[in-house]
C-alpha cells in the first residue's frame, strides 16, 4: 500500500534534530491517514486520532511523513487540525475518487441527468455558503434543506426565463440538438417531486436528486443531518467548507474560465430575491433556515 511513500517526499530541509524514520513512525503516519479516510470519525471522539493529530502538529518530521503517505495514496491533504481532523480528499484519478457513473446509473448515459446531479452538488454548496464571507469564515456553519435547494435553483431558473422572455428570445431548443439547450431549462422542466406507490420521492425528480446529493455528502462527512423538515435538513462540517473553498470551487471556476466566461461581480450581493411576479411556484417550507433568529 505504501510503496510510493518516498516518491513525493523531498529531503527534510536540513533539520538536524530529526532522527531517521523508523517503521513505527511510518505505521503511525499511515494510521493517521487511515483515520483521515474515515471522514465521519471525529477527532474529539477518538483519543488515538487526537494524539496522532497532536503529533502531526508538533513534530514536523512526522507531519511530512504523514503528508507523504497521503500523497503516495493519491490523496490531497486539505487541512490537519483538531476541528477537521486529517482532512484528506481524493486527487483526480485516484482510486478514492468518486465517479459519476458509480454515483448515479442514469447519469452515465444521459447527459441531462449527469448535469442535474452535478448542478445539485453545486447548488447545495452555493446555498450552504451564500456569501463569500461565509465560505471564508472558518466558524461559519451553513444549513440547507432538500426543498430549499430545489426552490432556490428553480428561482434562479425562473429569473433566466423571465430575462429571456423580456429579450424576446425563444429558448425552446432545436429538436435535433439537445446539447444546445440552455442548462437552466433542464432543471426547470424536470418535476420537483411526484406521488409514488411506496410514498418515496421519485429518484429522477429534482428533490430526489438533491436528496441523493445531500445523503451522499453526509456519507462523505461533509454534512450532518439535523432533521426531517423540508424534505431533510442538514448542516455543514468544517471538511465541506475546506473541500468547497480549496478544491471544488476553484476547479469549477477554472473550467468556466476555460469556456471563456469571466464572471465579474463588484462585491454587491448576487443572490437577490426574485422580482415580483405573479407566478405561484411555491414549494412548501422553502423558507431556508440558515440561521434561527435566536442564534448569536
Amino acid at each position, binding site marked *: 500500500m505504501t510503496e510510493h511513500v518516498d516518491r513525493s517526499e523531498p529531503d527534510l530541509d536540513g533539520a538536524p534534530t530529526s532522527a531517521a524514520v523508523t517503521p513505527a513512525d511510518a505505521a503511525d503516519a499511515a494510521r493517521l491517514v487511515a483515520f483521515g479516510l474515515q471522514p465521519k470519525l471525529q477527532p474529539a471522539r477518538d483519543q488515538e486520532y487526537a494524539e496522532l493529530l497532536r503529533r502531526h502538529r508538533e513534530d514536523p518530521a512526522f507531519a511530512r511523513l504523514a503528508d507523504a503517505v497521503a500523497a503516495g495514496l493519491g*490523496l490531497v491533504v486539505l487541512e490537519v487540525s483538531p476541528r477537521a481532523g486529517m482532512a484528506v*480528499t481524493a486527487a*483526480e484519478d485516484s482510486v478514492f*475518487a*468518486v465517479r*459519476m457513473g458509480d454515483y448515479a446509473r442514469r447519469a452515465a448515459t444521459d447527459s*441531462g441527468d449527469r*448535469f442535474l*446531479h*452535478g448542478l445539485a*452538488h*453545486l*447548488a447545495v*454548496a452555493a446555498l450552504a455558503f*451564500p*456569501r*463569500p464571507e461565509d*465560505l*471564508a469564515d472558518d466558524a461559519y456553519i451553513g444549513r440547507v434543506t*432538500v*426543498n430549499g435547494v430545489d426552490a432556490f435553483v428553480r428561482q*434562479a431558473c425562473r429569473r433566466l426565463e423571465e430575462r429571456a422572455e423580456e429579450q424576446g428570445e425563444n429558448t*425552446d*431548443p*432545436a*429538436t435535433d440538438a439537445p446539447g*444546445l*439547450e*440552455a*442548462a437552466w431549462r433542464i432543471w426547470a*422542466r*424536470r*418535476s*420537483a417531486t*411526484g*406521488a409514488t406507490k411506496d410514498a418515496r*420521492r421519485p429518484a429522477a425528480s429534482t*428533490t430526489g436528486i438533491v436528496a441523493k446529493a445531500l445523503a451522499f455528502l453526509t456519507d*462523505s462527512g461533509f454534512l450532518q443531518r439535523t432533521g426531517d423538515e423540508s424534505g431533510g435538513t442538514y448542516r455543514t462540517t468544517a471538511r465541506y467548507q475546506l*473541500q468547497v473553498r480549496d478544491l*471544488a*470551487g476553484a476547479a*469549477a*471556476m*477554472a473550467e*468556466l474560465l476555460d*469556456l471563456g466566461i469571466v*464572471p465579474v*461581480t463588484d462585491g454587491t*450581493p448576487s*443572490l*437577490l*430575491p426574485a422580482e415580483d411576479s*405573479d407566478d*405561484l411556484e*411555491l414549494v*412548501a*417550507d422553502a*423558507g431556508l433556515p440558515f440561521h434561527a433568529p435566536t*442564534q448569536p
Partner: protein
Amino acid sequence: MTSPASTDSVPPQLSAGPRPAPGPAADEGLARRLRALACTAPLHDLDARKANLAGEYSVYGMAEIALAGIDLVTLNMDFDTGADHDQIVARLIPRVAAQAPGRPAAEHERVARWVLENLINVGSVDRGFRAVYGTFGPDGAYVRRDYDFKLIEEVPGPGGSVYLRTTDEAVNVLVGALDTDVTSAQIAAEVKLEVLINRGRLADAQLAAEQARYRTVQYSETLRRALEATRRNVRAVDWLNTVPDMIAEALDHVADRYRHENAILTNIRRARDETEEPEHKRRAAELVDIVKDCIRRHTQLQSRLLEAGPLFRAEQDRQAFATPLTSSGTDLYGHLLAPTLPLPLEQARRVTDAFFARGTGLRTPVSVRVADLVDLLLTPPLEREHLGAEMPEPDLIATPDDSRFSEEQLAAAMDLLDLPADAPRRLSGLLAEARRTGDSDLAYLVALLAVHAASPPVGTAYRQGEQKLLFAVDDGTELDDPEFGGADLVVGTALLDAAGMAADRTEAA
C-alpha cells in the same frame, strides 16, 4: 426570400405570391400561439385516448373533467402547500358521476384518477408534456423546437407529502389570464364582489371571491421572497426604504382587507340566512367559506409581517456586524452557479462535472475476497416473517393486596350505612355501632365514607341512573369522639327519581 440584401432586384410587391416564411418577427407571434395551442393538446388527447381504456368510457367527457380538475387545483392551492391529490379526486367524482350516473362508483373514481394522472403525465421522467413546432430563425433557416410544459405539477409538502399545483401555462391558457397588478386587482375584485352581493348575483360573486383569494396568495408570496433573501444576505434586500415601505403597505393592506372581508362576510351571511331559494343558500354558504379562507390567509400574512422586523435585526447582527475577514471566499452563486445556468448543456456540464469530481469527497474502494464472496453467495436469504417476531409471554407478578380495608369490612360498613330514606342518623351513633362489632378499623371506614358523603357524587349517580344516594350534612353539632374530630354529620339516604332522570337523559341526547 427574406434576405434583406435584395434591395435592387424585383420590387417587393411583385414577389408577393405565396410567402410561407414571413420572417422571425411574425413567427414570434405564431410561436406564442402554437405554444398556447399545445397546452390544450393534452385535454383533447384525453378524449381521443379514452377509447383505448379497457371498458366503455365514451360516455365521459374527459376534457370537461380535466378542466374542472385544473380549476379545482388552482382554487385549492394554499399559501404553504398545494392542493391535496385525494381531495381533488374526491371533489371531481360528483362531476364524473353526473356524466354517467348508472355506472359503479369505483369506475367513477378510476376515471377521475386517470384524468388527474394524465394531467400530471405520470408516465414520463419529467412528468410533463412536450410539443414540437417549427419557426424560421433570423437567418431564414427553419428550426424545429421542443416546447416543454406542465399543466399540473407535484410539489413537496411538509412531512414528505406531495401536493398539486397548476402551472402558469395551465392558469394562463386554461383558467384565464390573471397577470395584472396584485394590489389594484385585489381591490377591484373586492369592489366587484360587494356590488354583486348587493344585487344578489351570487354566481358571479363566487367567481369574484375566488379571484380575490388568488390575489391574496400572490400578495403573501411577494413578501415571503423578500424575507427569504434577507436570511441569505441582508444586503441583497433594501431594508432602508423598499422593504419597510412594503411591510407598512402590506400591514395597511391586511387591516383594510380584514375590515372589508368581515363586512362582506356579514352581508353574505345575511343573504344565506334570508334567502328562500336553496340554490342561493348553497352558493352563499360556499361564499362564506371562501371569504373565511381569505380572512385566514390575511391573518397568516399579518403574523409573517410581524416576524419580519426581528428577523431583519437578527440577520443584521449576524451578517453585518461580524468582524470583516481579510481573505474573501468565492461567491459560489455569483461566480459559479449564475454564469453556468444560461450556458448550453454541453458546456454547463463541464463546469458541474468539475465541481462534482472535486466536491464530493472520497470513497474507500471495496475490495472483494473470493472467500467472502462464496460465503455471501451461499448464505440463504433471510426469510421475512409475515407476522413479525413472536411476542414473548408476558411475565406477570401478582401484586400483594395492600388495601387498608378488607372486602368484608367494606360490606359491613355499607350495611351500617344502608339507612332508610326517612331516618337519617348522626355520625356519632354510627361510630358507636361500628365499635360494638369489635373491629376498630370499621369505625375508621365508616367515618371516611361519611365524610365522603358530605360531597355526594350527584353527577355520577345521575348519569348511572342510581336509585339512591348517601349524603351527609353538617348542622353545626360538634362530634365528641375519642378518635375523630370535626362535625357530627347527619348521614342519610336520598331517594332519586331514576325514571325521571332517564327520561331527561334521552331528551338531552
